């Protein structure tokens, strides 16, 4: 019955900004434009969907089922999960193994890949544990932006999704973003104007130490045999999508290479890089 009522003229300058705890962090979504509130709703629904599909903490997610499955048994997963796994495999290969989306199965891999995709199913060839933490958050941000832009009617003047610092912007109104200094998180090292692009940051130590690290793997794994990353190491990468930006921060950090060739291949670049060896800024 609401449909028959005279609706107020859409307010093109309407704004909506909300935050919800998702993906293990605070996800903030902002929209400006006639349908701001609906765009924000659509964005959160998209993020929640990716969390349901790809969280390793949910037993019935694609990743939960994949981790529980014994090697050799194909597990059917969503097309979205497949897309993320495909990019993860590509980055793993191109980074010489520095970026990894699955752990375990030591000693396997000499004779062939540790896991393969066949149609819409994934098959492990070793007792692997998948963790898409380094890439799925970025993908969730991309899905949210897509969902916000897919709403019928005029495109929002601004759509911004920020998942704990991994963010993507779309629209005609750019936003300014402060980049924390990984060696002094309370300080801004740089201000960047984000306009129809994505930005992600990773720090080896994180802002806060995990309260219980017994079960949780380190946030960023050093590749086999490499020295562990100093906790003050960090990188921020600008890329066309947040999934790429998110994954490439790990490649940059793990390869100690802010100009890694993978960046240019994907139209990305490093905005901020700290190898963690420099002495922190003076107090």
């Amino acid at each position, binding site marked *: 019955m609401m449909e028959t009522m005279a*609706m*107020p003229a859409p*307010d093109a300058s*309407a*704004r*909506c*900004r*909300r*935050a*919800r*705890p998702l993906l*293990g*962090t*605070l996800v*903030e979504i*902002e929209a400006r434009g006639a349908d*701001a*509130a609906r765009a924000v709703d659509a964005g959160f629904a998209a993020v929640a969907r990716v969390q349901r599909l790809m969280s390793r903490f949910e037993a019935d997610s694609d990743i939960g089922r994949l981790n529980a499955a014994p090697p050799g048994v194909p597990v059917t997963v969503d097309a979205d999960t497949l897309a993320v796994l495909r990019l993860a495999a590509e980055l793993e290969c191109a980074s010489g193994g520095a970026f990894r989306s699955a752990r375990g199965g030591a000693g396997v891999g000499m004779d062939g890949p540790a896991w393969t995709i066949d149609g819409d199913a994934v098959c492990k060839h070793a007792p692997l544990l998948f963790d898409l933490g380094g890439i799925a958050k970025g993908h969730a941000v991309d899905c949210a932006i897509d969902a916000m832009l897919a709403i019928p009617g005029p495109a929002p003047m601004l759509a*911004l999704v*920020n998942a*704990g*610092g*991994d*963010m993507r912007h779309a629209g005609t109104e750019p*936003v*300014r*973003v*402060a*980049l*924390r*200094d*990984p060696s002094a*998180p*309370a*300080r*801004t*090292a*740089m*201000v*960047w104007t*984000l306009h129809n692009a994505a*930005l*992600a*940051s*990773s*720090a080896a*130590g*994180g*802002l*806060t130490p*995990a*309260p219980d690290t017994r079960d949780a793997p380190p946030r960023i794994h050093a590749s086999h045999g490499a020295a562990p990353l100093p906790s003050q190491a*960090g990188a*921020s990468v600008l890329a066309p999508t947040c999934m790429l930006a998110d994954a490439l921060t790990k490649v940059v950090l793990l390869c100690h290479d802010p100009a890694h060739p993978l960046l240019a291949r994907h139209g990305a670049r490093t905005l901020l890089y700290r190898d963690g060896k420099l002495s922190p*800024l*003076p*107090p």
Partner: protein
Amino acid sequence: MTTMRYRRAPLALVCAAATLSAGVVVTEVRAAEYMSVAESQKLMFPDATNFAPMIVALDPDQLRQLADRAGGLARLGAWRIWQARKDGAVLGYVVADAVIGKFELIHYAVALTPAGEIRDVEILAYRETHGYEVRNKPWRSQFTGKSASSPLRIGDDIANISGATLSCTHITDGVRRIVAMAQMALAGKSS
């Protein structure tokens, strides 16, 4: 629900450049206010006609159970609880709470079904305090005596920060306590 749910984030960008050496060295404390409790109630229960405040009284036995189930002591005083009603029927509950993390204070609201299951979690306000710096006296003293007209700048244009990721472990713990409480004290209450 076509009304605007937005408040300009009172971001406090505290610039300490005046007391520091060359270079862009900005120290900020981030704060964002997303919505009021009343706005969150309407967002999470758009059909409700009435939000009746409630007081939950748990006996010592229930408090012990709560601590066991939720893995920590309950902070009863911090909860504000409303029953969402429509024409006398109970649609669910809204519980407002705040958690203090290591570096942040987060106000949030949880919507629960009449059976005490989570429907939604919405962040109301967020303030990040870099405890180790804010509590540090020499760091704080650089602001002493500064006002809005002094070099201590209050910025309002950079609402987004990229950097090391915050954990929302404390919200997860807080929500778990609320669900445990709701299932003991709220579930099945018809009025």
